[in-house]
C-alpha cells in the first residue's frame, strides 16, 4: 500500500496516540470498544509550493466543519489567525524544501510532530521546481531576476523525506480531496487509509475509458503513474502527465522505449513506425514528479529536462526608485476608459 512506514518509526506509537485506535477502539463502535481520547492537534504548514494542496483541505466543503470538530486545527496560516509552533499530533506538510531556512524549519517541525504527512508532489517528490539542478541553478536565477545577487536558495528544491522522516504521504499535484478525507478518517478511526499504489490504468479501465495510447496514439503516463486522480486526463481526452508520481515498480524505461519507437509511438507509427523524438518523450517524464528516480532515469537517458534558459527581456526599471515607501501620486484624472470600438482592438 501507499503509506510510507519505516521500521521502528516513532510514528507507530505516535499514530497510535492519534487515532482513537491507540486508545483502543474507534468512536461510534459500541459495546466493548474504548472511546476516543482528546481531539488530535493538527497543523498545516507550507514550504515551496502553490498552496493548492492545503487549499484542498478547504475544498472538502461538505466535511470541512466536521473535520474542524474531529481535529483541533492549531496551525493553518492560510485559514486561521490562530498560530501554534507545536506540538502536533498530525502535521500536514505542503511544499518542497528550497531554502536553508526551510531546512532548519522542517527539522524543528519534525521534532514537534508525532505523525508527519507530506501532502502533494512538491512535498513528496520536490515538485516541478525540483527539476532544476545545481548546474542549472545560476542560469535559472539569472533568467528570472534582473539582480540575481539577492538570491539565496538551495541548489535545488527537494522532497521533505530527504531531510526528515516522513510517516505517510499523499501524492498528487494537487492531492485528491477524496484521499485527503480517507487519510483523516483513517486517523480518526484507526483504520488503514486505502491509497492504492497501482497504475492509473486500473481506474481508467474501471471507468470504461478506451486507452488513449491505443485508440488515439496519445502519449500517456498512466501506465507508470500512481492512481488517485480518478483518471481525469484520459477521461478528458488527453494523456496522463504524472501528477501522482510513479506507481509501484514503474517500468519507465520499458515504456519510454515503446513511446519512442514501439507500439505506443503514436500515429501514424504503430509498431515499426518512425516513432517519436526521444526528447519529446523525455519531456513527458520531466513533469511535477520528474525528480523521482523512475521518471528521472528516463530524462537522464533521453533528455527533456529544463534547458539553460535565455535571459528574458524585461523592461529596464527607472534609474532609481523613489525614496521611502511607495506613495500614491497626485489624484488622477477622472476615469477616461475608451468605451468606443477601437480599430486595433483585440482580435475576434
Amino acid at each position, binding site marked *: 500500500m501507499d503509506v510510507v512506514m519505516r521500521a521502528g518509526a516513532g510514528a507507530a506509537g505516535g499514530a497510535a496516540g492519534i487515532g482513537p485506535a491507540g486508545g483502543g477502539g474507534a468512536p461510534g*463502535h459500541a459495546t466493548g470498544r474504548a472511546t476516543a481520547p482528546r481531539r488530535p492537534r493538527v497543523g498545516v504548514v507550507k514550504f515551496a509550493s502553490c498552496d493548492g494542496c492545503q487549499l484542498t483541505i478547504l475544498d472538502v466543503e461538505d466535511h470541512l466543519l466536521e473535520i474542524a470538530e474531529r481535529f483541533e486545527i492549531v496551525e493553518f496560516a492560510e485559514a486561521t489567525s490562530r498560530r501554534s509552533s507545536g506540538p502536533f499530533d498530525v502535521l500536514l506538510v505542503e511544499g518542497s524544501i528550497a531554502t536553508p531556512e526551510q531546512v532548519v524549519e522542517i527539522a524543528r517541525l519534525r521534532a514537534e510532530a508525532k505523525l508527519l504527512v507530506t501532502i502533494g508532489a512538491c512535498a513528496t517528490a520536490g515538485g516541478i521546481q525540483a527539476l532544476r539542478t545545481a548546474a542549472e541553478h545560476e542560469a535559472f536565477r539569472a533568467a528570472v531576476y534582473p539582480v540575481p545577487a539577492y538570491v539565496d536558495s538551495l541548489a535545488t528544491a527537494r522532497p521533505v523525506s530527504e531531510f526528515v522522516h516522513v510517516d505517510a504521504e499523499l501524492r498528487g499535484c494537487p492531492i485528491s480531496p477524496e484521499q485527503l478525507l480517507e487519510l483523516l478518517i483513517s486517523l480518526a478511526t484507526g483504520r*488503514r487509509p486505502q491509497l492504492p*499504489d497501482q497504475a492509473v490504468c486500473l481506474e481508467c*479501465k474501471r471507468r470504461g475509458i478506451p486507452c488513449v495510447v491505443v*485508440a488515439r496514439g496519445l502519449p500517456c503516463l498512466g*501506465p507508470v503513474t500512481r492512481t488517485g486522480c480518478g483518471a481525469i486526463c484520459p477521461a478528458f481526452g488527453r494523456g496522463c502527465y504524472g501528477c501522482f508520481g510513479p506507481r509501484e515498480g514503474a517500468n519507465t524505461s520499458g515504456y519510454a522505449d*515503446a513511446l519512442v519507437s514501439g507500439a505506443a509511438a503514436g500515429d501514424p507509427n504503430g509498431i515499426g513506425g518512425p516513432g517519436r523524438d526521444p526528447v519529446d518523450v523525455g519531456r513527458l517524464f520531466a513533469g511535477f514528479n520528474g525528480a523521482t528516480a523512475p521518471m528521472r532515469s528516463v530524462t537522464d537517458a533521453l533528455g527533456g529536462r529544463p534547458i539553460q534558459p535565455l535571459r528574458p527581456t524585461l523592461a529596464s526599471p527607472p534609474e532609481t526608485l523613489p525614496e521611502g515607501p511607495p506613495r500614491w501620486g497626485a489624484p488622477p484624472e477622472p476615469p477616461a476608459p475608451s468605451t468606443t470600438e477601437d480599430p486595433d482592438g483585440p482580435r475576434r
Partner: protein
Amino acid sequence: MVIASPGELATTAPRFLPRDRFDELIAALGEGGRRVVGPTIADGAIVFADLGSAADLPGGWTLQTSPGRARLERLPEGPGEARTFQYTVSGEGIKRFTFPSRVDALSMETADDGTVRVRVEAPADPAPLAIVGARACDLAALAVHDRVLVGGPAVDPDYAARRRDLLIVAVECALASSTCFCASMGTGPEVTTGADLVLNELDDGFVIRAATPAGERVLTTVDDLRPATGDQAEAGAAQTAAARAAMGTAAIPANPRDLLLANLDHPRWDVVAERCIACANCTLACPTCFCTGLEVHSGFDAAASSATRAWDSCFTEGFAQIAGGSFRPRHRDRYRQWLTHKFATWWDQFGTSGCIGCGRCIAWCPVGIDVREELNEIAAAPAAAPPTTALVAPALPQIVAGLDGAPDPLAFSPATVVAVTPETADTTTLRLETADPRILAGTPGQFVMVGVPAFAIPPISISRFQPDGIELTIRAAGAATSFLTRLRKGATLGLRGPLGRGWPVEDARGRDVVIVGGGIGLAPLRPVIDAVLRERDRYEDVRIYLGARTPRDRLFVEEIDALAARDDVLVRVTVDRAGPEWLGRVGIVTQLFKTVRGTGADATAFICGPERMMSATADVLGDLGVPREHMWLTLERHMECGVGLCGHCQLGTRFVCRDGPVFSLAELGDDLRREGL
C-alpha cells in the same frame, strides 16, 4: 437467456432483416421495458452502451486493430460501406453489464444495541437486459464467467442476479483482425451457443435466425419478416468461413497448459518482463478476467461502513500482498501468473481455458505484447519436456440455475466476544460465541473471515473449537488485526466460514505425529493438538516442536507446559534469543530435530509458521525420511473472499483459500520456491 438453458441451437428458419428495419428489432428487444445495449462509437473506439436507435450503432465504421493499436476508420467506399458490424471485437467486451467494474458488496454497521451486522449486497432484480452485437468470443467469455462465478462451489450473487434474464443478439464475424484467434481456441467465429438470436450481416441487411425460444418470440414480434433466401444464408456463412480461414487454427501451440506448467522458469519470462509495464490493461480488457478487490468506505463515525467490490488485477503488487510483503514483486512474476492462469491453471481450476481468443489483450496492450508470440516463443525452445501427468479436470458442480437452496458461503453470521486472553505483547485470543452451525462444525486448520465496521476483513485461523463457539488467536500485524486485538468482552463482530481445507488429521492415524509451529503459526495447529490428544491412542509418537522469538513471545504457555508434563507427548521449545534466566533451548526450530535419530518414514508432520521456517523444517524432516505427501503445511496468502471468487490467493493451480490453506509438500511441488516470501 436463463443461465441453465441449453446451449444447443434450436432450428428455425432464418429471416432477412433489411438494414433500414433494424430499429424494429431494437424496439422488439426493448419490449417490456428491457434495456437494450449495443456497440456505439465513443472516445475514439467502439464500446457497448445503451442504444436509442440503430443510428447509435457504428454504421460505416470499423476498428482496425494490431498489437498495441486500435483505430476507428471509415469503411472503404463500395457496396459494404454502410455495414454496421464490419469490425471484429469492441474495445471492451460485454463484461461490464454482467460483471460491473464496481458493485456494492457489503454493508457493515453497529446497531444501537452494539450488535455488529454484516450484510452481503446484491442488486434487487436489475432491469432485464438485451445485448446486440455480441460476437462468438464474447459468448464464449460469458460461458467462462458462468462457470467461474455461478458454477460453484461458491456463487457470486451479484453476477447471478444480473445474468439471470439476459437476451443476446449475436453477430457472426464477417472478417478477422490480425489480433483475432478465436478459431484456434475453438470459440468462433461461428456462433454455436449462448445466443438467442444470431445475425449475419450482408451489404443490404441481416440474415437473422433464432437460437432459443426467447429469440424466436422476439422475431415474431417484428412484423412480416421474409425468410432469408438460400443465397443470403450462404453469403452470410461464406464470409464467416472466410474469417475463419483468415485466422487459421494454429495461432498458439497445442496444449498450452502442459507447455506452460513445464516452463514456469523459462527465460522468456524475463524477456517479456522488460517490455511489460504491468499496466493491467490486458486483464481489464479481458472478458474472462474476474479478479476483484474490496474497497472499504466509512465516515468519521466508524459505526457504519460499506464495501464496494472493484475490478482488480494480478499485475499490481498489492494483489498478492500480505503483511509480510508481496508474493509477486516483479513484473516477471505477474506476467507469468496472468498468462499461466489464462492458458494453463484455469483448466485445473474450472475445467476450461481462461482464454477465448478475442485478442483484446493484444490490441489494448500499450506496448503491444502479443500472447500468441509469447506462447510460441516458449514452445519454440521449451526448457523442459511437458509433464506426463495428464490434466485432471476438477470435479465441480455443473452450472446452477439459481441461488436458492445451499447455504451461502458469503453470508456473515454474528458472534460475540465472551472472553479476551492476552497471549503476548501483540497477540490476543478472543473467545467467540456463535450459533452458526456451519462454524461449530468446522475442522482443524479452517479459517473465518472477520468483519467489523470500517475495517478490512481479515482471514483468521480458528485456534480452538468450543461447544458454543470458537477461539481466534490474533496477532496485531495491521490495522484490522490491531483493532481486533483491542476488542473487549461483549463486543460483537461478523463471521464468515468456516473456510478452506484444514489439516487432514486422519492422515496421521496409526502414525507418528510431528507438529512444528513457529510464532503465531501455533494458533492454527492448536486444534490439531486438541484432536490428537482427544484420541491419543489412535496415534503413535506425538512430538511437538515450537519456536518463538523470545520466551515472552511464546503462545499458550500454560497449555504447552502442561503438555510437556505428559509422558505420552514430546514437547520441545526453542527461542531465537533469550536472557540468561532462560534455561530452555535457543536456536531455530530445525535445531530441535538434530537429536532425533532413526527414520521419519512412519511420521505425518503438521507444520505452520513463516514460509522460510516451514521450508527449512520440511528440508530437515525430509532428510529424516518423512514422506513429502505426509508433510502438511498451511499457507498465508492475500484473501478477500475465501471461496475462490476474488482470485487473489492463487498459487500455481490452486486457490489457497478454497483448495488450502493446508497443502502437502507433495501437492505444492516447487510452487513455494517460485512464489514464496
